[in-house]
């Protein structure tokens, strides 16, 4: 009997149900897509923040003091400690290897450059680095990385040098100072400390490098020559070595827990810290895998990222919450309307002896069916919506999360129920006679 009544109600008057269902579908679609985006946004924004470049700096531990101004190390090549380039593949074997998005070694060499073999030399720096290097990882794969990942704001006119080739790019300020140097031209570079032992042992007098591009970095590199790391190693007489490593890693915003000293944590806390992608734990893992190094957090980048990420995700949760509330109110309002509309029906049922419980039961059963149907369709629609929103906002579609389905289903049921409860309570007070008379 009960089931038949509910069924009849759907068959007899589908139009009325349609409206509530439509509101539920749209409401739940909004809920699904906002929740999907909110779940994903932290991850996506963290990736966006990598456009700020590297957030970790690896240097040799037992080093002399770098003579460093604006990212360029002016120390002579025979001073200080070096790190081995061959070990770098190991960075992709740490626990958070997938969060290591890129790393680039740097070796700065004071040089003098000549526009032709007999021209007067000018002093500057040569920065050896990677453009796009396939780094062999101990597990047999390779990993492609270079300056475009750790220093994405560097702009090149012309093209980057090929790794390993006798090519170079020159800084914009240097290009302005020495107007003779244009892409296509060959410059001759030699170690500034020419005549010393390093120079005499291995390198020829001047090394010809073809200029292939002009780079602008808005920093000290603008006044230098950038060349493949091998060139810098050859010039400095330190094959396979480098001095600084910039690492760009995806991290979770630092909080009070991540700032604690890992040595003072309990084993459980330590595991939790180690297994969270905090910048401090990634730094720790890098230091473990590359012994003899010092890993520093570049605070400007890490702090800004952390601050903004945590603010934006709080903001997004609030926005999601308010969107959910607005969606819930709109859906509840619609179901309230459809219940109000059926006062006549309630009157008839009551006149025929239906109790308030039965009437409420029928209406709620209807709402539940609607909620299930609306939530399922809304979930699918919302997933599609989230995909397109994700790709328009982050350039990558947001993948649907099945875990949200029960959440959305529960939400739909609650909203549809509460929406009909208020009119139902009023309906319970109706006396059938006036309603049936049409008042």
């Amino acid at each position, binding site marked *: 009997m009960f089931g038949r009544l509910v069924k009849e109600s759907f068959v007899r008057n589908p139009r009325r149900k349609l409206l509530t269902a439509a509101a539920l579908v749209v409401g739940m679609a909004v809920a699904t897509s906002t929740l999907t985006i909110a779940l994903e946004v932290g991850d996506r924004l963290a990736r966006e923040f990598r456009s700020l470049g590297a957030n970790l700096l690896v240097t040799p531990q037992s080093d002399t003091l770098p003579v460093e101004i604006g990212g360029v190390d002016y120390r002579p090549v025979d001073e200080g400690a070096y790190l081995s380039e061959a070990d770098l593949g190991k960075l992709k074997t740490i626990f958070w290897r997938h969060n290591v998005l890129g790393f680039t070694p740097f070796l700065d060499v004071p040089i003098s450059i000549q526009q032709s073999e007999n021209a007067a030399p000018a002093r500057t720096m040569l920065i050896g680095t990677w453009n796009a290097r396939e780094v062999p990882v101990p597990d047999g794969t390779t990993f492609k990385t270079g300056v475009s990942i750790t220093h994405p*704001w560097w702009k090149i006119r012309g093209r980057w040098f090929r790794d390993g080739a006798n090519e170079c790019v020159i800084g914009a300020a240097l290009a302005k100072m020495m107007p003779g140097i244009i892409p296509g031209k060959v410059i001759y570079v030699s170690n500034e400390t020419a005549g010393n032992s390093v120079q005499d042992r291995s390198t020829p007098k001047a090394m010809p490098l073809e200029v292939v591009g002009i780079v602008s970095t808005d920093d000290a590199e603008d006044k230098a020559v950038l060349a493949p790391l091998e060139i810098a190693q050859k010039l400095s007489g330190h094959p396979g070595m480098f001095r600084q490593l910039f690492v760009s890693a995806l991290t979770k915003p630092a909080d009070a827990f991540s700032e604690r000293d890992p040595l003072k944590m309990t084993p459980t806390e330590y595991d939790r810290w180690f297994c969270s992608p905090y910048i401090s734990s990634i730094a720790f893992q890098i230091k473990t895998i590359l012994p003899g190094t010092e890993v520093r957090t570049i605070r*400007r980048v890490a702090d800004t990222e952390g601050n903004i990420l945590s603010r934006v995700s709080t903001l997004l949760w609030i926005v999601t919450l308010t969107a959910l509330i607005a969606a819930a109110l709109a859906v509840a309002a619609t179901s309230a309307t459809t219940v109000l509309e059926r006062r006549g029906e309630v009157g008839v049922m009551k006149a025929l002896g239906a109790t308030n419980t039965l009437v409420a039961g029928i209406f709620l059963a209807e709402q539940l069916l609607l909620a299930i149907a609306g939530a399922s369709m809304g979930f699918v629609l919302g997933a599609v919506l989230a995909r397109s929103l994700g790709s328009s*906002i982050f350039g990558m579609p947001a993948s649907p999360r099945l875990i949200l389905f029960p959440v959305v289903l529960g939400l739909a049921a609650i909203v549809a129920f509460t929406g009909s409860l208020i009119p139902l309570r009023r309906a319970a007070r109706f006396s059938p006679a006036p309603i049936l008379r049409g008042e």
Partner: protein
Amino acid sequence: MFWRLLWKLLRGSGGRLAVAILALASCAMVVSALLNLEFDIERKLTQEFRTLGANLLISPRNAQITGSSPAEVMSESEVSAAIQSVKDPNVIAVAPFLYVVGSTQNTPVVVAGTDLEELPKLEPAWRIEGQWKLSPAQQTMCLVGRKVAQQLKLAVGSSLNLTYLKQNVQLKVAGIIDGGGAEDSQVFVELPEAQDLASIPGQISFAQLSVSGTTAGISHYAARLASALPAYDVKPIRQITEAEGDLLSRIRLLIVSMIVLISVLTALCVLGTMAALAMERRQDVGLMKALGGSIGRIVTLFMAEVGVLGAAGGFIGAILGVELSRWMGQRVFGQAISSRWEIFPLTIILMVAIALAGALPLRLLGKVKPAIIFREQ
């Protein structure tokens, strides 16, 4: 007549209209809060970005590159006069820098002469152990980078002897800086100390500025500054400005799409309410038609009703939205988001539009045939 009818209609179906107003007002509240946020987020977030440090650099044109001494310098007074003349409230910190490679304990070390008082404002992300500034009496104090402290075994309060050529200065370590970059291997002293050391009074290597605001605002300020300083290079530091603009546009797109989604939902709710209302009022419409009311007039009446609903919902919602955005700002940024007055009419207009869009199916009422309606009775 029109207004009296409108009033009657509004009063007649109070419960149902209350539902529509509720939906409209909740939508208006969220939308106006989001709009407020959308207008203010740029300012709020660009302030956050200032932890990135300086974003504007004034440097001598055609500076020479040398490893050990400041080859090209510029006049401190000229630069500071220009910065004074181009006033802008968005300038957070200005710091002149003079770099000298001096030595201490026979180790070469980069000495940065700057305005130590401006340093914490310029670089809010740097951590310090000790103090940024001692009392003014102790002129000869310095801040050392973490690596310097490690290498030279310095602690807060220890003293440091800096040499450059034949100049010599005795300094006291006030604090140890941990910044993670080049600053960790530098020694920061007051600008005059560095100038004395290098024997170039009144000269600096470059000046750094931290300016809050949008990318466009910063380049505008840079352009004004450049015209006041024709002899120097004034340029925004790109690492920072580019990332800012990109992130901002994404966050704003997110907010705008939320606004659109919520508006669609509300329109649907209004549609539901209005469709139900129209069904209920078929008899009224039949009667009006039978008495000679034109369709245009009847639909106008209904639309006016919906418009009033939209305006009322928008009004209530906009007021609540001010509170919501204040709370949001407090919760997210730790300071209230200032409400703009433009949001108020904008929200109301938007709500009226949404309500009217939701009520468009009411035009179907035109098809009502009075005779059929009455016969049904």
